[in-house]
């Protein structure tokens, strides 16, 4: 009896997501009919556009890569019931630090500089988020607030470096000098920007899944996430598991920034990473915090984005209209995911 009810609940959760998806697509279609003079073309490019050629398709997948990393970062934190809302700043500063390293290293260091830059980006995110975890452990500061505040402050510092000391006067954008050729990831699906880091993203998903479900750190994080009282009773050092999930979460965000620079952008453009952090939360929520679920969820998000871009290029839809349609879908799905997440947390004793 009880077992079938549980399965039912799980099914209801997935079904709920599908229904929301259907409704949001319907609203999007209605909006397009209202706002576009040629609604059928617009609808075609909005939903099918990303699959019409190799360039669009590859770029869509490429846009999913940073979302996989940030989505994983959020999933690890949420699974442990800690909240990292500093994703934006962690991605952005991770990207900057990685860029600085690559610009500073002499050409003679060769390919070795790549891993160093990746590690530096990762460490930057880890330190920023880890600080919030540490404050929480030490003084009980709410990590949700502190991570958000630290991140917001860091954005301005990064902006200063990109537009100030590191600014490339030869580039018309507000951006740093470009990183050396030897640091750039191999493109694997030309003419699109999709590069080898897609493989890293998949590996990261598998690795985090393994960490969460097969190792004792994962077990301890999950147990603390589900029931801290039980964990403390059972002899787990619960204060550690406020800090560790934050560190891992921050590290994945920092990595997202570094990977985006080395794979796609090659220069750190002012505010280039905006949205990667917040969208990571939505991705994690849609994936129900399952590390393997993050992969398709990130692709889905990228798909919506790519559809809007394709519609803009090929029909009379302006940027604003595309953004409105896209937001309707984003908000509905995120709201549904948050709703089921909150309901799940409500059932779990804190």
């Amino acid at each position: 009896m009880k077992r079938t009810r549980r399965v039912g609940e799980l099914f209801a959760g997935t079904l709920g997501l599908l229904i929301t998806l259907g409704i949001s697509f319907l609203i999007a279609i209605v909006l397009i009919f209202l706002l576009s003079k040629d609604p059928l073309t617009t609808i075609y490019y909005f939903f099918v556009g990303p699959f019409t050629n190799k360039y669009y398709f590859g770029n869509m997948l490429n846009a999913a890569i940073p979302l996989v990393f940030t989505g994983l970062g959020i999933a690890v934190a949420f699974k442990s019931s800690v909240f990292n809302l500093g994703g934006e700043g962690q991605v952005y500063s991770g990207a900057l630090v990685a860029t600085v390293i690559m610009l500073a290293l002499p050409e003679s260091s060769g390919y070795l500089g790549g891993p160093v830059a990746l590690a530096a980006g990762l460490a930057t995110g880890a330190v920023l988020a880890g600080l919030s975890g540490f404050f929480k452990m030490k003084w009980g500061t709410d990590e949700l607030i502190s991570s958000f505040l630290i991140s917001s402050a860091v954005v301005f510092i990064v902006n200063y470096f990109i537009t100030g000391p590191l600014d490339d006067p030869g580039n018309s954008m507000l951006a740093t000098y470009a990183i050396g050729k030897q640091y750039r990831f191999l493109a694997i699906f030309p003419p699109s920007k999709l590069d080898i880091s897609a493989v890293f993203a998949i590996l990261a998903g598998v690795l985090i899944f393994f960490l969460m479900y097969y190792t004792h750190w994962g077990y301890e994080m999950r147990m603390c996430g589900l029931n801290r009282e039980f964990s403390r009773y059972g002899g787990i050092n619960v204060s550690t598991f406020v800090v560790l999930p934050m560190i891992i979460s921050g590290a994945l965000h920092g990595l997202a920034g570094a990977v985006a620079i080395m794979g796609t952008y090659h220069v750190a453009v002012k505010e280039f990473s905006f949205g990667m952090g917040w969208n990571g939360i939505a991705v994690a929520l849609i994936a129900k915090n399952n590390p393997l679920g993050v992969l398709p969820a990130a692709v889905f998000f990228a798909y919506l984005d790519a559809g809007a871009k394709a519609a803009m290029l090929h029909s009379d839809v302006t940027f604003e209209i595309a953004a409105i349609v896209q937001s309707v879908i984003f908000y509905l799905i995120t709201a549904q995911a948050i709703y089921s997440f909150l309901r799940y947390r409500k059932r779990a004793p804190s």
Partner: protein
Amino acid sequence: MSSELYLQMRGITKLYPENNVLANSNVDFDVRDNEIHAVVGENGAGKTTLMKILYGLVQPDSGRILLQQREVQIQSPLDANRLGIGMVHQHFRLIPEFTIAENVVLGTEPRRWGIFFDRDRAINRVEEVIQRYGFTINPRLPVARLTVGQMQLVEIIKILYREAQLLILDEPTSVLTEQQIHKLFVTLENLRAIGKTIVIITHKLGEVKAISQRVTVMRKGEVVAVRDTAEVDERELSRLMVGKSVTFQFEREPVKPGRVVLELREVVLRQKGQDRPLLDRVNLKVHAGEIVGVAGVSGNGLAEVEDVVGGLRRVTEGQLLHDGRDITDLSAVQLRQRGLAYVPADRLHRGSSLQSSVMENMIISSHHDFLRGGVFRQKEVEEFSETLSSSFSIDGDPRMPIGTLSGGNIQKVILARELASNTDFIIFSEPTWGLDVASAEFIYAKILEIRRRGIAVLLISSNLDEILALCDILVVLYRGEVVATLSNEEKLSKELVGEYMMGLRDDGGTQA
């Protein structure tokens, strides 16, 4: 005094399906107009559930409520307030940073222009209530600066502000000092004198005699007696509350107690914001192969002994010793490493993680034994849980969430896990609370079996039958103090222990 009935509850039945506890079984409960009516009973007797039903916090499965002969529907506390019913909860519901006036008007704030909080009017109105009932307290004071007795007064003012005619107080004296209790009683007397009707839930029989006109005694979800307080003495009430001895007959073969395994020395536990210590110089020794029972009515320090010995709460003063070594400052993590085994009273929140699988629940304290390079050896974990499941006959798939199991099976999982550790002492707290007879007997048999193995057992329980059936030594707590240490022999009667538990005796008992 008019003896007209103010409140009638008829045939109230409430079953909590989660743990299959019949909290109220066809309960009839009457309160006369303008009386102070005490409701007494051991914990789990159903008093609080009955009051929650009256206050709209819990919906009964069946039964009717009549207020002044008119049938009423109470779906929520808001309904209750509208009908003139107010409740002071055992744990205060106040916001420490707010002033008294702000706390009192919370939810029905006077407003200026419909949107702004009108602080002056709030203070005036609350001041008016304070004057009318003859209290002396400044409504501008922040609640954080009040004593516990004053906070309780704020709770009372809160319900008087909402024009309550019937006041329910849930164990109002459990956190108060003697003087504060005296003051409270004067207040309640005054409120009655001006026409209020009061229901007071309590464990303390002296208080029943001191304050009430009538008393309803509950036991195991049923009303067992309704008396005029003047015509009943405390001993009779005590007997009515604990009931006849249910004789669990177990063979407790005499064991010569070994070394002292666990010792509490002069343990004091204080809590911020409470004027009375929760544990007051508690001394206690558990020898190898001995079961020491800690008995008492809840709210008298049982839960605190559990927390302290389980390493989840630091003592304020005094020492804890394990095998003669000081373990006072060890954390739960370190205690686990020393082999602490512990079956907690709160098995659904502390003892298990309901959404995790049975398997994950089984390895919480031992999961480090299943690792190779930080990675679980899945096969060994599975074998371990299969072994525990079959030796404790736990039904169900170990991969399913433990929350899908019955209460009895959840307790078996906890028991299996704790007994699997290689330990020389184990704590049981309320091990059979809410369980059916078969599960309880299974657990009793296990406790006696580990006693035979020479393990020191500390059994904390408010169930006297259980304590008397199992224990070698019995320690009775009353208001955080050890009022008796008794050796459990033939002549030890349930009535006598009951009297210690209710605070009717404090001669220290026959020293064991």
